[in-house]
């Protein structure tokens, strides 16, 4: 009996999964100076339904304005397709292979770009963040590069690589790597100083310090950097396709525009928007799963 925790202990050390996420029995959080989780969870369901309700209302209002604008005499007849026409076009496009191939191509390039950004940006940011000197001395360089509107480099990059994946990836990396670098730099500062003492005092090995102190401590800001980078990367992917002519959603958008298929233009734009939303939600979901222990996720005020 007493052996079972011994066996499970090192295992659970490795995978801080969401198993302890719900507080099944009331925690003994009283006055004694502890973190007060309050009762943020009470009535969470009602709150969720209400907030969803308001989101639907907001969407409905936007659609209504759109419909009115498309019917208004201010627009040339037929220049702005209404929501019904766009949804019609979208449904029609769902039946075509071109549409799905475009999405797949865009997602593929986006993913490769983001992966490269992560592999380069996260270690670079962490390495800079560890050293105070490096943080200070690289500030101007990083601020300079991240404020360059990458789209301005598109002609140059296009000249170098042509309408290819290399062109797209170059643009994605040049724009999306910075939020990852910057957030990772800040993430290093999130490691609790007392815990840094703890691992020293208890002579915890270098590898264990990485796994059990540094990795969980930097997760919040690194994944936040991921979210920012993911959005920027998608933006750049579609832009590079639209302007640079690489295959994907942007290229289809441009094509529809050139052939005066206005409803299709909107349908593709809408698709890109939904893709961005989906990506954001997925990353947010993963972030919450990884940070199940974090006061932000628990709804507690630390």
């Amino acid at each position, binding site marked *: 009996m007493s052996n079972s925790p011994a066996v499970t*202990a090192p295992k659970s050390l490795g995978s801080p999964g969401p198993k302890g996420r719900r507080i099944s029995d009331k925690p*003994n959080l009283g006055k004694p100076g502890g973190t007060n989780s309050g009762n943020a969870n009470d009535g969470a369901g009602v709150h969720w339904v209400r907030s969803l309700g308001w989101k639907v209302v907001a969407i409905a209002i936007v659609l209504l304005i759109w419909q009115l604008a498309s019917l208004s005499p201010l627009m040339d007849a037929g220049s702005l397709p209404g929501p019904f026409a766009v949804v019609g076009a979208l449904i029609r496009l769902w039946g075509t292979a071109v549409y799905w191939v475009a999405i797949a191509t865009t997602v593929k390039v986006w993913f490769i770009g983001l992966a490269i950004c992560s592999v380069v940006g996260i270690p670079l940011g962490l390495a800079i963040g560890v050293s105070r000197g490096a943080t200070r001395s690289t500030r101007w360089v990083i601020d300079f590069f991240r404020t360059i509107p990458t789209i301005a480099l598109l002609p140059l990059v296009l000249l170098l690589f042509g309408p290819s994946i290399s062109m797209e990836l170059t643009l994605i990396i040049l724009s999306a790597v910075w939020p990852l670098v910057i957030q990772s730099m800040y993430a290093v500062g999130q490691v609790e100083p*007392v815990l840094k*003492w703890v691992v020293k*005092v208890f002579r915890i090995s270098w590898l*264990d310090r990485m796994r*059990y102190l540094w990795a969980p401590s930097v997760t919040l800001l690194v994944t936040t950097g991921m979210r920012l980078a993911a959005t920027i990367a998608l933006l750049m992917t579609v832009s590079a396709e639209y302007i640079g002519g690489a295959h994907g959603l942007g290229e289809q958008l441009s094509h529809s525009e050139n052939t005066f298929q206005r409803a299709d233009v909107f349908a593709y734009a809408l698709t890109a928007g939904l893709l961005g939303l989906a990506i954001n939600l997925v990353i947010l979901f993963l972030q919450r799963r990884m940070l199940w222990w974090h006061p932000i996720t628990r709804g*507690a005020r630390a």
Partner: protein
Amino acid sequence: MTDSLTSQKPTNPPAAVETLLAVKNLAKNYGKFEILGDITVDVRAGEFMCIVGPSGAGKTTLLQCLSGLLAPTAGNVALRGVEVTEPPAEMAIVFQDYSRSLMPWLSILDNVVLPLRSSKMSKDEMGNKATAALEEVGLKGHLHKYPWQLSGGMQQRVAIARALAFEPAVVLMDEPFASVDAQTRSDLEDLTLRVKEHLGITIVLVTHDIDEAVYLSDRVLVLGGRPTQVVDLIETNLGGHRDQISTKSTPEFAKLRARVYQEIRSQAAPGQP
């Protein structure tokens, strides 16, 4: 000597006391600020020593020097004759701020197991040792909870268990009970006394609470002055078994308490010429 039935139970340990932790002419400056003056004290094996002093006396700085977290400006610290330059394997610390010193992403058990992983123990042994330590502090039923699911007092008990499982010769405690309420505080004091007795470890505890210092200690080290120096080192002689009510109502306790109080107050008086 042979007919000494009367002195059957000596209040002091036998003559040959082993020095566990030797602090010699320790000084610590932060730039121009001299924090610790010239501190010399020997911590005996198996004793409970409390360090008290006015706030800002550098008690925590001293503790950090003792543990090798901070290099002294002058002098040295030796554990069993070996100079301390980094945290020694035979030393563990309980930090004041339990909400920061435990890892919220690890369960109670894993928090205690983590320091054991660098040893050559098998996983079963580590788990057993950690479980035993948690049992020692009365947390057997909470192994798989997370620190933020426990009260402050219970979290500090986890920190104590983590230190015990490490099997140190000496445990340093930095104002360990300063952030819990009064009732929890006395519970934790008694727990610490019991555990020390049971496991025969040495404890050096820093506190600003005079009652706590006198109640827990075999010897109280009073610090004061600027830079901080040893003002007094007092044998409490309050005996082995202590009780929150009866020990604290003895005249000896009151005398010791008054003595420490006066010493600290006279030291804390600002800039007398």
